[in-house]
């Protein structure tokens, strides 16, 4: 249901005031760039309701700011005339909206059944170890890598399958792990 890279501790520590939503703050008010705003306005012409543009508008927000902060939620809510708490409720349902900043390379290991049959869990653990004993969802100190586990990426013939940001990588094993990581600059 929910998942993705987030920082549960920070969310608990920053308990939102009653009536507000629980997104992390990025510390400053946000507004779409004119180009992003243009794309959002175009989106609105493709649906009979403004609300239907919520998922693609959140994608625009993530593209602009890298993750969905409290201020991003507020801005998207304003643009689409929705309640911020509603928008946050939608954000938390989907795994791909980052609820905290992530590293430059978001490495996503599929550990579903076909990849499991090719030892995906082992490669996932090894990858975190080689990047400095990262915990699941943790970002490396240099801010370059965040490693998470995801479900089937529809590349089961290329098991173990991995995605880095928006790109697909096929057959990542313990043997080629170093060259795979070395390729991510």
């Amino acid at each position, binding site marked *: 249901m929910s998942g993705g890279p987030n920082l549960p501790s920070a969310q608990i520590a920053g308990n939102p005031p009653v009536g507000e939503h629980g997104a992390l703050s990025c510390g400053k008010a946000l507004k779409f760039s004119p180009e992003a705003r243009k794309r959002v306005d175009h989106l609105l012409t493709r649906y009979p309701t403004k609300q239907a543009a919520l998922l693609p508008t959140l994608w625009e927000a993530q593209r602009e700011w890298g993750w969905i902060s409290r201020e991003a939620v507020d801005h998207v809510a304003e643009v689409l005339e929705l309640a911020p708490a509603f928008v946050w409720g939608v954000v938390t349902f989907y795994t791909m909206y980052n609820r905290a900043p992530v590293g430059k390379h978001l490495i996503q290991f599929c550990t579903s059944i076909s990849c499991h049959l090719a030892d995906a869990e082992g490669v996932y653990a090894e990858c975190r170890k080689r990047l400095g004993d990262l915990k699941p969802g943790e970002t490396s100190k240099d801010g370059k890598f965040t490693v998470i586990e995801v*479900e089937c990426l*529809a590349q089961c013939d290329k098991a173990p399958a991995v995605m880095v940001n928006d790109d697909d990588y096929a057959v990542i094993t313990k043997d080629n792990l170093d060259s795979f990581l070395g390729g991510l600059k």
Partner: protein
Amino acid sequence: MSKTPVPKGFTPVHSARFGKKGSQKLAGYEADGGYASWKKVAKGWKSGDFTPAKIIDMVKASGLRGRGGAGFPTGLKWTFVPPKEKRGGKPVYLLCNADESEPGTFKDRLIMEEDPHQLLEGMLIASAALDVKHAYIYIRGEMVRCAEVLNEAVAEAYAAGYLGKDILGSGLDIDLTVHRGAGAYICGEETALIESLEGKRGHPRIKPPFPAVSGVWDCPTVVNNVETLAAVKFILDNGPEWFKGMGRNEKNTGPKLYCVSGHVEKPGVYEAPMGIKFMDLLALCGGMKGGKKLKAVIPGGASAAILTAAEVADLPMDFDGVAAAKSMLGSAAIMVMDETTDIPKAVTNISKFFAHESCGQCTPCREGTPWLNKMLKRLIKGEGKRDDLDLLLQISNQMGNGMTICVFSDAAIAPVISGITKFRDEFEAYLSKAKAPDFALAAPAEVTPKVADRVAEGIHG
């Protein structure tokens, strides 16, 4: 040419252009005869040579059944949309289900990446037949590159006048929008997909009303899988008899894309006539990896019951063939496991998937899926309790009596029930040092026939 071998005497259909240079581009598609059917439909629209009824009859006559999981007859589904005079002025929507998230499934992606125009042409023909003015492709969030290919194809189709206003002078107006999801398996369930498209959490709806009557934005809505809609184009190209001529019998027709993964030499998407025998399919894949022995097969994605090597030995891989073996063809995601596979670990892995993906609306599913996963995890660590297998079956039983909003819950228990009943000794082995249970079971576990039937029926709604 197809990227993978096909059975002798079979000419590839969906995969014919896969791997060909520029297969995604409109020019290449047209050069290979693409959009000929759409042009025929558009040309014949005003003269009445082509009517919605004619197209629907062709689809019905072809025997086409939905490729998204349930195998529901497509032509019949289309007739559930109320006639114009009963729609109160509401538009009809066509939604292409490109959420493809069932573990083991990767065929729709290939159609969209390699030959996106076959899908667009199928959707245009379906839109004309169903009086659709705006169609959507709901593509899973992870398929970013694939969505880019689709968007380019859509732009090309608009520029060529195949999409848009008064298409090719037919008077038909059809728009098409690619909509990206954001990571949630449940959004593949058609009513969850509808909620998600509306901009909400992907919570399945209680049925009825069925989408054909009241779907997205409370309007009549048809949801079909990528491969299903693409098949419509080929039915118009070659006729329903041609389509029907491929396949095992009247009820299992047409070409089919099979996704084969796991312990085979060459995993991939293989196209074959519906109903190819499992062993023939395995041979196309180059056989078992490293020449190992076959142990078990999951024939239709993680939601399907596991079959033993003996059960698949002579199994026709079509809707009714796999259902007769008390599993389902589902999305034709065939996962092959060799003799080294640890079945309890595989089942535990699948239970993790379902625990992660439950949408949380229904108590049996929300609570049951993590319970199964936790117990199985404990079991494979060697820390299980003596009655655990019966308890697992009992919990499964309580999750699958049709008490949930959608059939996800039934899907979640299929691998657990089939795994434990067919490979019980492997599970027992993990319990060899098991301690007494914390509490006694009220009654010995048995899977009620109702649950077994629902699982066997092919549970996708």
